[in-house]
C-alpha cells in the first residue's frame, strides 16, 4: 500500500451524505422540455448546427465546438428544436442554449457505434473520439478532457489519478457511480492510461466510502498492477486537484499558474472516466450524468441519472418537492456550488449536485469586523492569508491582493466556512481575482 501524505489546512464540515448515500442511481423522468446550453465548459461556446423547428435524434450533435479548448454538445433525446435563445444558466446569467421538446421516443442517431477494442486505436484517434463525444471534466471544472489528455512536449506525464474523493458535503453521485458501475470507471481509466502511455495510476477515494473502495478493488482484482486504490483521510478539500496530488504522490504543483502536468500528474474525476468509457466503447456522447439531488429541504433525496439540459425544477419534482419552505437552491456542493434564483436552470455537464437548504437552515449572519483570529490562515490549503486578501479587496487595493497571492486561491471556501466573524472571504477573493485579471488583460 502506498504511503498517504497530508496537505496543510482544510476543514471538517458535517458531510450529511447519509441523506442520499444509500439511494441507488435511478433514471430521472424525461422532462417536458430540455434546455441545452451552448456553453458548458471553459473555452469558447458552441455554434448551433440545428435551427428552430428541426427534429433531432438522441446523441445527434446540435452545437459544434469552436477552437481547440472546446467540445460539441449533443441532443439528450429525440425531439424538436423549439427555440435557440438566451436562457438562465447555472453560472448565474443568461446564456445561449438550445431548447428541445422531447418526442418521448428517444430515437438514437445513426452511426453511434463504438470501439470495444480500444487498444487498437491510436492515442490521437482516442482523443478525437473523446472530443467529438463532448467529454469534459465532470467534477465541476468542465475543462475539455481531450485537452487535458494532450500534454505538450516536454511535460511528460508519469501518473494518472482518478479522483473519487468527492469531498464536498452532501454529494454522493461519484460514490454511487463507483459502487454501481466500477467497471466503467476502470475501463475509462485504462483508456486514459493508453492515451497517455503511463504505467502508474491511482484511484483516490475518501475513507468514509469503504463500499466504493471495495467495489473498485473488486473490479481491479487482488494483485492488480493497473492501479492502486488509495483510501484518503476525510477532510475538505481533499478532492481538490493540487491537494490530491500532494497527498498521493507528495508533489506540489507550483503556484502562480502551475498545472498538475508541471509535476507529471493528470487528475480525472471518476464521472469523467466513466464518460470516456461510454464514449469510446459504445460511442455514446456525454448527454447524461449522475446528479445527487439532496439537502434537508428536499422530501426524498436521490441519486439520479439526468439528461443534460433537464431543468432543475423537474428533478425537484422527481424527489417529492420541497420538505419545508426552501431557502437556498445550490448547483454543486455546499462549499463551492453556486446558489440559484430559479428552478429553471438546467443541469449541465459539470452539475454534480442539486442542493436545497430549507429557509430554517439558511442563516444570513451579518459580517463582523475581522478579529484577526488567524483561523482562515490555519485552514487555507493553499497557504494564503485570506484575511488580508479579503481586506485588500474590500478596500479596492487589488495590487496588494495580488502581492498576497490572491490568484492562487482555489476558491475552496475553507476560510469563509470557518471564519467566526462570518466574513464572505471567498466572495471578496473572487472579486479581487476578477479585478486583477481584468487589469492584466488590459496590459
Amino acid at each position, binding site marked *: 500500500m502506498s504511503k498517504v501524505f497530508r496537505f*496543510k489546512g482544510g476543514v471538517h*464540515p*458535517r458531510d450529511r451524505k447519509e441523506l442520499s448515500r444509500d439511494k441507488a442511481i435511478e433514471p430521472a423522468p424525461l422532462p417536458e422540455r430540455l434546455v441545452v446550453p451552448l456553453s458548458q465548459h471553459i473555452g469558447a461556446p458552441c455554434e448551433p448546427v440545428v435551427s428552430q423547428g428541426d427534429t433531432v435524434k438522441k446523441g445527434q450533435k446540435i452545437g459544434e465546438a469552436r477552437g481547440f479548448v472546446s467540445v460539441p454538445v449533443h441532443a439528450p433525446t429525440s425531439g424538436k428544436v423549439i427555440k435557440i435563445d438566451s436562457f438562465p444558466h447555472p453560472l448565474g446569467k443568461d446564456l445561449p442554449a438550445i431548447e428541445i421538446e422531447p418526442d418521448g421516443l428517444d430515437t438514437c442517431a445513426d452511426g453511434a457505434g463504438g470501439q470495444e477494442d480500444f487498444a487498437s486505436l491510436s492515442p490521437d484517434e482516442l482523443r478525437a473520439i473523446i472530443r467529438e463525444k463532448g467529454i469534459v471534466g465532470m467534477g465541476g471544472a468542465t475543462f475539455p478532457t481531450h485537452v487535458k489528455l494532450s500534454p505538450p512536449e516536454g511535460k511528460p506525464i508519469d501518473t494518472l489519478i482518478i479522483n473519487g474523493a468527492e469531498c464536498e*458535503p452532501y454529494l454522493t453521485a461519484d460514490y454511487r457511480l463507483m459502487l454501481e458501475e466500477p467497471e466503467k470507471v476502470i475501463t475509462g481509466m485504462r483508456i486514459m492510461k493508453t492515451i497517455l502511455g503511463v504505467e502508474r495510476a491511482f484511484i483516490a477515494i475518501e475513507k468514509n466510502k469503504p463500499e466504493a473502495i471495495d467495489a473498485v478493488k473488486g473490479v481491479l482484482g487482488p494483485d492488480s498492477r493497473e492501479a492502486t486504490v488509495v483510501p484518503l483521510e476525510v477532510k475538505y478539500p481533499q478532492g481538490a486537484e*493540487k491537494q490530491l496530488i500532494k497527498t498521493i504522490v507528495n*508533489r*506540489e*504543483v*507550483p*503556484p*502562480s499558474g*502551475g498545472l498538475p502536468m508541471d*509535476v507529471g500528474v493528470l487528475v480525472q474525476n471518476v464521472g469523467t472516466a466513466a464518460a470516456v468509457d461510454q464514449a469510446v466503447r459504445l460511442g455514446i456522447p456525454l448527454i447524461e450524468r449522475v446528479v445527487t439531488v439532496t439537502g434537508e429541504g428536499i422530501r426524498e433525496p436521490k441519486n439520479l441519472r439526468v439528461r443534460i439540459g433537464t431543468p432543475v*425544477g423537474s428533478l425537484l*419534482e422527481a424527489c417529492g418537492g420541497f420538505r419545508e419552505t*426552501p*431557502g*437556498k*437552491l445550490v448547483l454543486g456542493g*455546499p*462549499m*463551492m*456550488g*453556486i*446558489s*440559484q*434564483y*430559479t*428552478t*429553471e436552470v438546467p443541469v449541465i455537464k459539470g452539475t454534480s449536485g442539486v442542493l436545497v437548504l430549507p429557509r430554517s437552515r439558511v442563516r*444570513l*449572519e451579518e459580517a463582523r*469586523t*475581522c*478579529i*484577526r*483570529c*488567524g*483561523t482562515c*490562515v*490555519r485552514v487555507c*490549503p*493553499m*497557504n*494564503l*492569508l485570506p484575511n*488580508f486578501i479579503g481586506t485588500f479587496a474590500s478596500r479596492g487595493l487589488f495590487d496588494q491582493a495580488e502581492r*498576497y497571492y490572491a490568484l*492562487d486561491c482555489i*476558491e475552496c*471556501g475553507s476560510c*469563509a*466556512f*470557518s471564519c*467566526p*466573524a*462570518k466574513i*464572505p472571504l*471567498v*466572495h471578496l477573493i473572487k472579486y479581487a481575482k476578477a479585478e486583477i485579471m481584468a487589469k492584466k488583460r488590459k496590459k
Partner: protein
Amino acid sequence: MNDQRFVVSASPHLRSEESVPRIMGSVLIALAPATVTGIYLFGFHALLIVLVCTGSAMAIEALTQKAMGKRVTITDWSAAVTGLLLALNLPPGSPWWMALIGAALAIVLGKQIYGGLGNNPFNPALVARVVLLISFPVQMTTWWKPTSSFFNVADAVTSATPLGAMKTHLMLKGSLEGFTMTGLIGPLVGNVGGCIGEVSVIALAIGGVYLLARRVISWHIPVAFLGTVLVAATVVWVINPHRFINPLFHLVTGGLFLGAVFMATDLVTSPVTGPGMILFGVGCGLITFIIRDFGGYPEGVSFSILLMNATTPLIDRLTAPKPFGWVESKET
C-alpha cells in the same frame, strides 16, 4: 414551484458554528478559575473590582457606540473580556473609582478610538493598566497578602510581591545573597502578593489548557514567551547566581503566566501566522526578561506585550507565508 424565492449568496453555503461571541465566551470561561481564585484569596474587595471593571467596560462600550452612532456590539462579549482582564491585572486593593477609570480608558482609549473590536493595535486592558500605573503609582503598587477569608477587608495586610521583594533586596544589597526566595508552591496556588488574577499559576494554566483545547489560542505565543524567559533567565543565572534569580522563580511569579496565556495571545493584537506568533512570543519574552533582570521595574510583562503589539503589523508582513508549492517551484 417556479415562483419560489431563493436566497442567492456567495459560496460556501455552510458555515461553522464558531462565532465571535462564542470565542469571547470561551475566554471568559477560561478566565473563571483565575477570577474565582483571586476573589477567594483577596476577598470581597477583589470581587468588587471584578464587577466594577467588567460591568463598566460593557456599559461604557455601549455608551460610546451609541454616542458615535454605531451599532452597539456588547453582545459580542469582547468588552466583558477586556473589563475582566483589566480587573485581573489590578492590585486587589485598587479603589473602585480607579477601576472605573481603567475600564473607561480601556474601552475608549484602547479600543473605540481606533474603530472598535478588530481595529485596535494595542491590547486595551494593558493600555489602561499602563496609564493607571503612571497616573496612580501608589494605588497600583500596594499589594495585599492573600488571606482567603472573604470579608476581612479592614484587616488586609500589605505585602510585597515576590518580584518586588527580589528587586528591593537586590537594590539594597547589590546581590541576592541573603534573599530567601518564595517557595515555588506559593505562586503555583496563589499564596503570594500580586494582582487579582495573576497569583495562581495553576488556575491560569487550567484556563490556558481550555483555550488551547477549544482552539481559541494556539501554543505558539505562550510557549515562545515562557520559553524565552526561561532560557534567558537560565543563561544569566548560570553565569552569576548571586546577581540573578532562579529561572523558575521568574516563571511562576508576577504576571508572566497571565500575560503569556491571556494577554499576549489577544487575537486582535498578535500576529496571525504560527511563525509570526513565535517571533512575537520570543520578543515578549526577551523584553520581559530585560526589564525584570536589568530594568528599574520589578515587572515587565505589560510593557513587553504592548511593545510587541506595535510590531505586529511588521511581523505579519515579514512572516507572510509563501503559497502552497512555492518551495518546490524554486527547487525544480
